Structure formats: structure tokens, C-alpha cells
């Protein structure tokens, strides 16, 4: 109940939380023209990188590129703040290549704050969101703990690890969202009252040490790339000197320290009840789970240009502080390292994501969206991707427009959200390339080609930005055609060149496109194989076009196969299931399928097919039933919420 005298403010969209999900959500909503407020517990702590100060990595880097291609901020912000950048997996195929950057965490925060402060229509409000105002299963607003009431049409929850959070080391714990910061104690009760299911997860961060006390001579130096990479499609980062990272490995001595003190770990003492991330395991868990492994890698990474603190990736632990020091000192290169921040675990409430539709909207409360760790994920990139999508959909909902959903064959973002809302999570979710069945299509290099026209339609990508993408596509098409028509002669000189490259001579003149398909031959080699005007034309191709031509030539067959598969499945994949569909009345469905489908209520038949316990036979039964239903019932009217998913075209 609100007091009558209470002052209130009205917004289209309110975002609760100022981390990586909250920032993207608030920016997207405001940039789409919605009056937006971002409510954060502490406005000095916006876009914090409380764990690894890094953006990207395999699977995650693709997410950041996609966020950028859709007009999000994470890529641009990482470009502004990075102190080392590398392309990973350059020796492997393009599907698994990805950028990873170490960021100066202070600059990352500052730049994000600047970006937000300059965005018209976006207001930052410091306060604790205490009570959601929900009536008739619809969100109306939120009351802050300080008493202010903020009215809204849509609300995005991006609370990270703060809901009823406690931080843990050994058998000690206290209430905090991050060490030193107060948690959000009120909101969980309000979520429960609104009929949402709330569960506990756990995450952890490794210790930080003083970078001046490491011995680089005992570790492997890891420099950044000299190639001027950037996450963003829209700007070129200024060149800068990069800081090095170091690689070392744990030893038997390290493992012995851990084993000896395992009884002091919160894992054993039971002071942590939530489940932790399997894919980012603590050193405690690694020693338990892999007793035969002789060593585990430890990456020593700088946290910024204004701090000597370094992050120990791989040594996550919540063992007591004196054990942490012993673990560090038992690791080569870190014998004399001085601990600055002990590692710790944090336990928090999250909302099991099967309660969401594909637009990240709550099934129980209309207008309520959620993004980031509250949905059971981990990682800044996963958070940003969901934040962007939740912000977009919150804005669309506020304008009574149909939601924006990306399919699994369009983007990692589509894979991420489909995985979450369909399968749920039993541990903090992290993106991997292996989660995407069409990863040859969802590459780091083609994110803009895949998504920017969609971002443009939403108003998040400008005409000029779209024009640069279209120009590149035009160039690629032009060169593709050129390579088909250009002939490479089978002369003596060429035969020698080819032999030097380890590939047989041509049996006669061949189209350049065919020659480029040989795995030994790069575009640069091809330039050598032609002469005159042809050579000049090829030599003038821009690098980003060459990249596409090489990928096309090499993976053409696979890409075609994946495209055909997508086309074959699209009819069933995108077939909508009415929200009120009664699974129990469908004859021929197994009991398990009925039960699971009725609970999860998938938006599409494709999503239904990925619900665990639902067999292909069940899907066939459903397909027949849905077709029958469609004949008897009119198509759902566009704009009627999630039933009319905005089916964006995949180019």
C-alpha cells in the first residue's frame, strides 16, 4: 500500500540493477525512445567487473559482437577500456574464433557511466527496489525502500547476485551483494508474492594479488595481438600499448594444500547451499573432481592501468584466507605473491528461467522482464546479451508492439535465451560454441551481417551504420562473382607456386573461386596466381571482404548444408503454440511430455522439441494436432503478446 502523499514519477520502462545486464537494458530502452529509469543500489558501482575484468572469449565473444551488431554498448565499451586484446583459436576454424580482451575495470565503469549519462531519456536513480506493484498479473511500478514510487509499463529485473545475497569464505559469511556492499533484502519477498519461483545459486571469485610481487620469469608471458582488433563494428579503437598476462600452472604442492584443507571449504562445511558453476569451477572442486590431473592452468591477468592488482584466473576458492595464501605460494611464479583481496563465494536468489517466455518476459506477470544472473546465468557477455534483449522487449511491450525474438540459427543470443527458457538451469549457465547447432553460421565475423538490419528496424542502429554493413555485403557479393568468372592459368610459374604451397598443379585453367577452395591456398596466394588487371583487382580487396571470401570458399559446403537444414526445420521450428494450448487433451502424447510441456509452455514447436523428455514422436503428434487446430482457429492476431513472435528474416 502506498501512502497518498507519496511523490511518484512515471516511466515507460524501469530497469532494476546497474550491472552489465541492467546497463544494456536501460540504454536499449532509452535509445528506442522510451522514458527510462535505471534504479541501482549504488550509482558509484555501475557496470562493475567484480570478477574477471575481461570481455569475450570463445562463445562469449560472439555474444558481445552480436550485442554490438544490434546497437548495444558492451563491445564499444570494451574497445574503449581494453588493456590487452587477443583473437583466440586462430589456428582453428572461423566458427570457434573469438576475441577476448582484458579491460581496465575502472575505465570500463567510467565509460559506461558516461554513455548512460549522455543518453537522452535515461535517468539513473539510486535506491533499493523494494516492492513490485503487481495487480491482475501486470506490473504497474515499483516502490523503492526510501519510499519513492516509480510507475512504469514494463520493468526489467537485472539484480545480479544481490538478492538476499551473502558472501562466504570457509565457515564465515555475512550479508553482502559483493564484499563491502549491502545486498538487496526486500525484493525477493515481493517476487514470491507475485507468484514467482525463487531459488539459490552460488558463484565465486578468485583472489587478487599485488602484481609487483609475482615472478614473471617463472611464468609464460602472454602478450596481446598487434592486430588492431575491435569488438565494435562501428568504431576503430585507438592504438595503445598493451599490458601482458602470464600463464602458470598449479603443482602437486598446490593440490596438496587444497586437499589438506578441504574440510574448511564451504563446499564441505555446508555453509553454501546454492549450486555453483561447473564450467568455472573453484580450485577446491577441481582437486576433488580431477584427482589424477597433475596441474591446472592459472592465468595471471592485470586489472587495470591504475592498479597493480592482478586476477588469478583458475584459482577461484572460498577456503579460509590463510589457506588461500598457501595455495598461491605453492604455485610457480607466485611464491612471494602478496594477497590483496581474498577470493570468496557469493550466494544469491535467482528466478529459474523456465518461468520466462522467449522475449524474457515473465509468464506470470505481464510487463515483467528479467536478465542476467537473476536468470541463472554467469558472465558479463551473457548478461549483456539478455539485458539488451530484455530492454528491447520491455520497450516494445511499453509501446504495445510484438516482441523481438532471435532464433537459434540467427544468433548465439537466440541459443542462449532458448536454452534458458526451454531447458532451465541447474547451475549458472555459460555460453559455449558447442551449444549452437549452427555455429558455422553464427560466427564472430558475420555478426553485423546477421543482425544489424534487425537492430536498424528497432531503431538501435543508425542509417549510416547499416549502410556500412550493406556496403561490405555488396563488396563481398561483387568479389564472389568476380572469383567465379576469373580464371587461373595452369602455367609453369603457377605450378611452382602451388607446389611450394604443398598442393598439386592445376589440370587446366580453373575459376579462381575453385582454386581458393583448396585448403592450402589463401587469398594472398591467389593474388600471386593471377596477373595484370586481375591481380590489381584482387589486391585492392579490403581485409574484411577477404576474410569473408576465404571463409565462403573453405566452408561453402558445410554452410550450404546448415542452411538447408535450417530451411527444412523452419516450418516446424517457428510454428507457434497458442499460450492457452491444452496439452492434456492431446491424445498420443506421453505422460512425461504432457507434464513438462504444460509446465514450460513453449512458445514454438521448435522450443517444445528441445524440452527434455519430449521425444520426436511427441513432436509429430503435436505437429498434427497444431495443424488441425490452425485450420479450425484463426491465426492469432499480430500484436497479441508473445503469440505473435516477431519472426525476423534470416539473411
Amino acid at each position, binding site marked *: 500500500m502506498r501512502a497518498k502523499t507519496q511523490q511518484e514519477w512515471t516511466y515507460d520502462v524501469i530497469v532494476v540493477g546497474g550491472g552489465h545486464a541492467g546497463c544494456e537494458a536501460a540504454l536499449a530502452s532509452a535509445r528506442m525512445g522510451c522514458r527510462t529509469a535505471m534504479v541501482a543500489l549504488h550509482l558509484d558501482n555501475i557496470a562493475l567487473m567484480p570478477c574477471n575484468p575481461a570481455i569475450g572469449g570463445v562463445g562469449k565473444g560472439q555474444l558481445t559482437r552480436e550485442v554490438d551488431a544490434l546497437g548495444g554498448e558492451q563491445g564499444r565499451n570494451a574497445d574503449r577500456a581494453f588493456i590487452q586484446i587477443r583473437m583466440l583459436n586462430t589456428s582453428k576454424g572461423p566458427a570457434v574464433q573469438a576475441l577476448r580482451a582484458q579491460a581496465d575495470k575502472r575505465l570500463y565503469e567510467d565509460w559506461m557511466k558516461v554513455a548512460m549519462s549522455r543518453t537522452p531519456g535515461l535517468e539513473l536513480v539510486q535506491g533499493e527496489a523494494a516492492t513490485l506493484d503487481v495487480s491482475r498479473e501486470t506490473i504497474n511500478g515499483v516502490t523503492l525502500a*526510501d519510499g519513492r514510487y516509480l510507475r512504469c509499463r514494463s520493468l526489467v529485473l537485472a539484480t545480479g547476485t544481490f538478492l538476499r545475497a551473502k558472501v562466504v569464505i570457509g565457515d564465515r559469511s555475512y550479508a553482502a551483494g559483493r564484499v563491502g556492499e549491502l545486498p538487496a533484502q526486500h525484493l525477493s519477498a515481493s517476487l514470491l508474492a507475485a507468484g514467482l519461483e525463487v531459488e539459490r545459486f552460488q558463484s565465486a571469485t578468485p583472489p587478487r594479488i599485488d602484481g609487483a610481487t609475482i615472478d614473471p620469469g617463472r611464468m609464460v608471458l602472454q602478450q596481446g595481438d598487434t592486430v588492431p582488433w575491435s569488438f565494435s563494428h562501428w568504431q576503430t579503437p585507438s592504438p595503445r600499448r598493451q599490458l601482458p598476462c602470464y600463464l602458470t600452472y598449479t603443482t602437486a604442492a598446490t593440490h596438496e594444500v587444497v586437499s589438506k584443507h578441504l574440510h574448511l571449504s564451504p563446499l564441505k562445511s555446508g555453509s553454501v547451499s546454492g549450486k555453483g558453476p561447473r564450467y568455472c569451477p573453484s580450485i577446491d572442486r577441481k582437486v576433488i573432481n580431477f584427482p589424477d590431473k597433475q596441474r591446472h592452468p592459472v592465468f595471471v591477468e592485470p586489472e587495470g592501468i591504475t592498479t597493480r592488482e592482478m586476477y588469478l584466473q583458475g584459482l577461484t576458492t572460498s577456503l579460509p584466507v590463510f589457506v588461500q595464501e598457501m595455495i598461491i605460494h605453492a604455485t610457480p611464479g607466485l611464491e612471494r605473491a602478496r594477497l590483496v583481496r581474498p577470493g570468496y563465494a557469493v550466494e544469491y536468489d535467482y528466478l529459474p528461467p523456465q518461468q520466462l517466455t522467449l522475449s524474457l518476459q515473465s509468464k506470470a506477470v505481464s510487463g515483467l522482464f528479467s536478465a542476467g544472473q537473476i536468470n541463472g546465468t554467469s558472465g558479463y557477455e551473457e548478461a549483456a546479451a539478455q539485458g539488451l534483449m530484455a530492454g528491447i522487449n520491455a520497450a516494445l511491450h511499453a509501446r504495445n508492439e510484438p516482441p523481438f525474438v532471435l532464433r537459434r540459427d540467427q544468433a548465439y543470443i537466440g541459443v542462449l535465451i532458448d536454452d534458458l527458457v526451454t531447458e532451465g538451469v541447474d547451475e549458472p549457465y555459460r555460453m559455449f560454441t558447442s551449444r549452437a547447432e549452427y555455429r558455422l553460421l553464427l560466427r564472430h565475423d558475420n555478426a553485423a551481417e546477421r543482425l544489424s538490419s534487425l537492430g536498424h528496424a528497432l531503431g538501435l542502429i543508425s542509417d549510416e551504420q547499416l549502410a556500412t554493413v550493406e556496403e561490405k555485403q555488396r563488396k563481398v557479393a561483387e568479389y564472389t562473382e568476380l572469383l567465379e568468372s576469373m580464371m587461373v592459368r595452369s602455367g609453369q610459374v603457377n605450378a611452382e607456386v602451388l607446389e611450394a604451397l604443398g598442393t598439386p598443379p592445376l589440370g587446366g585453367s580453373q575459376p579462381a573461386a575453385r582454386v581458393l577452395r583448396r585448403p592450402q591456398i589463401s587469398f594472398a596466394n591467389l593474388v600471386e596466381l593471377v596477373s595484370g588487371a586481375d591481380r590489381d583487382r584482387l589486391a585492392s580487396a579490403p581485409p574484411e571482404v577477404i576474410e569473408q571470401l576465404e571463409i565462403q570458399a573453405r566452408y561453402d559446403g558445410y554452410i550450404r548444408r546448415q542452411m538447408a537444414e535450417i530451411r527444412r526445420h523452419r516450418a516446424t521450428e517457428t510454428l507457434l503454440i497458442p499460450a492457452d494450448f491444452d496439452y492434456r487433451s492431446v491424445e498420443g502424447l506421453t505422460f512425461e511430455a504432457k507434464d513438462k510441456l504444460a509446465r514450460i509452455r513453449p512458445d514454438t514447436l521448435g522450443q517444445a522439441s528441445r524440452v527434455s523428455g519430449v521425444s520426436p514422436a511427441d513432436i509429430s503428434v503435436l505437429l498434427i494436432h497444431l495443424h488441425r487446430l490452425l485450420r479450425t482457429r484463426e491465426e492469432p492476431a499480430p500484436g497479441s503478446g508473445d503469440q505473435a513472435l516477431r519472426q525476423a528474416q534470416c539473411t
Partner: protein
Amino acid sequence: MSLRGVHPDPASESMQSLPVLPGSLSGGDARPQVLVVGGGVSGCACAVTLAGQGVRVTVVSSALDSIGLPGYGANVIAAGGRAAIAEALAMIPPPLRDIWLDAAVTPDCESGVLAVDRRMISVETKCAMEQIPLLEFRQGLVTDLRLADDAGGGADGGGRGAVDAEVAVETAFGEVMEADAVVIAVGLGLGGTVHVGEDVLPGGRYGETGADGLRMALECMGAGLEEVRLEVGPRVGGQSATVAGSWNEKRGGDGVGRRLDGVSVDTDGSRLRSDTLVPEAGDSPGEVECLLSGAGELPCGAGEDGPMYSIERVRRLREVLQSTELLGGKGGVGRPVGCPTAPHWAEGLPAESMVMLIPREMEPTPVISPDGAATGELYVDPLGARGHELKGILVGGKVAGGESLIASRLDHCVTGKRITNLSPHGRLTLSSTAAPPDQAVPPDQAVPPDQAVPPDQAVPPDQAVPPVWVAGRAGGAGDYLESLRSGVRVAYDVRRWLKEIRE
């Protein structure tokens, strides 16, 4: 209660024989001589001064990301105007003094109000302090303070010499840290509560965990506590409320906050020196010089191939980073003198979003200052206005929706405890011989170090005088300048005590 054996540190035995006197400084693993609990304005001033005088010091703070942060608003206010500000800043050692001067966003402090970029002070302070060889940071929320029962010392042997008392703190994570002396610099965190609108939060600074365990430990020891109240002004979003207030009208081109009386710029322009700092009596000139020149330029890296950090290195890195615009370009290390000083986020904003803020009852005019280059907020000093009474008045266009502005941060009131039974130098005095609260001398009125009576004449016997000092607001300082001064003053006293017990 003895502290022996509490901390299962395998190295602790060898540590006890380490020579810890200034002048024979040992390697990086030694136990600190002094623990400074709290890394705010006073804690940093204290730690920097101590380390500058050859004392090994560890700052224990649960908020390592806001080290040195002026936590209660952007304005430094001194009744004496420019001269008072200059005098106070002149007293603090160079790395910090430079930072505060560089972070000034008003060139004119005649009125006694100097606005600083809080964020910049915090980032720069942490950066500069990390360069100081004897100074270390440790993240931890201190929940307990313990005195060894064998105070009076030397009984344990182990070659520690004339250390007459031991003290230790314990963190919420169960870590126990020992030292010869502890300085409590937790601001208003002792039993602190923050009142924001209808909400009451624990803590001495908004959003941060308080120091309640520490308050209880002090109470059990018999420390006198007295409630202090502090009003913190609201912030408004600068983008919808870029202000034409007094802070930017008088903005001139005279080198942005660099001309303070009593402080002069060295010929090379890189170092500031103070003419008014009074060297402590009895100290050799060399030690005073150490304080004056600071340790900011000392490299302390691992060698040619490893990370080697120094202010110089950071400066070079910033020059090549595009990001220089934000931190370096706006102030701090390497800031070009006379650069435009509009907050970073306000550059290029259209005139129609300019709004003049006035309080509902036109009087008095609020002091409004940018909260920092990157924050996008304007701080409204509580001397003049209260947040929810502010209204937007149109200057060139419309405020979004024409509605009243929402405060990005509400004005709030912090109540906390200050410790009353302190010596003039900020040392905790217990038992009946302690000065009653009304006779305690607030640090800002305390006699300068060189005129002070030696501790052994000023304070009761040892058992009533644990090696515990209190700096900053917890010791009664009322503003940033007093906090800075009190941190320095406490450091002098701790240093003198350490020297004495070794002689």
C-alpha cells in the same frame, strides 16, 4: 587473551625476528607495524604519512574499489576560504596533496567551497598508494579488535624487542591480522546508520557494510562513544539538469585549482611543494624530506620484463590510451593545465536540456557542483537545498515531461559514533583517567605535533592506553580537511610511539 597461535601463518615465527625499524626495511613478506582500518580520506592520509616515514603499514578495507573516496559529497568546505583549504592540503604528503589539487574542478575557492572529482580522487589515490613500498592493501571487513593480554610486552621473547603491546583485528572472513598499532579510520561506520527517505540502512557510507563489530569491540574495551550526524546533499542527473550555477560562472583559465596559497608548483611543474608544512620537532631533515617528496616516484616492480609500475609508467600508458580523455585528460596525472573543465558527460549536450535548479524557497542559493568527470551527476550541497524540494526551472527548453526532477541520489543523513576518549593526538585512552568527553580536544583544535607534549606525559599508564588510534570522522573530524589533517596527525603520533618503544 593471547594472540599467539590464532593466526596459522607458517611464516609468523620468522617474522618476529625481523628488524622493523625504519632504515632497515625488509622484504615484502613482513608483518605490518600498523594496521589502518578503513581506507577513506583519513585512513589514506594516515597510511601515506606513515609509509612515507618508513613505517610498514597495511590498509584493511572492505571497499578496495573506493579507496580514498570522499564519500559524503563533492564539496570541500572550509570556513577560512582559500587559505584554510591551502593550509590543510599543505599538511598532507605529496601524492595525496597532488591528487586533491588535481581533482579540483573549481578554480576559485575564495568562497571556501572547493568542488572535487570524487571518482578521480579515489582512482588516483589507490594508484599512488600502491606505488609506496611500505604500504599494502588488504580487503577485509574488520569485525573485531583484540588487545594482547601480555601488554607491556617483551615477555614472549622471540626477539621482538621493546614492543610493549600487541593488537590484532579480525575480519568477517575469520582472518586475524596482527600489528604493533591499529588506527581506526572507519568514518561514521561505528554503529553507523544511513537514513534515506523512509529507509534506514546499516553502514557509515551509503550502500556499504558498516563496522558494527568494531563498535562492539570498542565498547567492550570501554571506549566512550558519542553520536554524530551528517547531512549529505542530493544529486540530480546532470544531463537533464546541467546547471548554470556559481561553479561554472567563475571558471577561469588560471590553471584550475593549482594556485592555492602556501603551495607552489616546482619549476618542472610536476611536483607541488608546501611552504607551510611544519617539520616535526626532533625528526632529522632527511625524514622530513622523505615526507615532502613522497614515494610516488619510486618504482617497485619485478624487473625489466615483468610488470613495473610507477607513476611515470601509468602516465605513459595513459598517453597512448584513447581513454586518456576520461581520467588523464580531465585531471589527475598528466592533465594539461587549463584544459576545459566541463564534466565529461556534459560535453556537447544541447542547450535545450540546460536547466537551472533552485530550491523551492529561493533562499539560500544552493551550492551545486559536478560530482566528477564521469558520473553524470551534480551534487547539491545541503547547506543550501534539500533534494526533493528542488524544482527544474527552464532555461532554454523543456525538462523531459515537464515533471519535477527525480533526485538521482536522495539527500541522506548518516549517523555514526565518534570515539570521545582520545588523547590530543587521537590515541585511545581508557579507564577512569581518560579525559571526559567534554574535555576531549577535537583533532582540528589539537596542538600541532611539534608543540605537543610527549605521549608518556599526556596519557595514563600503559594498560589504559592500548596501541589504538582513531582518525577522521570516527575521531571527531567534521569534514574532509579535518579528516586529512587528523590522519596525518595520528600518523605522526603513531610513528613517534613506534620509535620510542624501540629505543
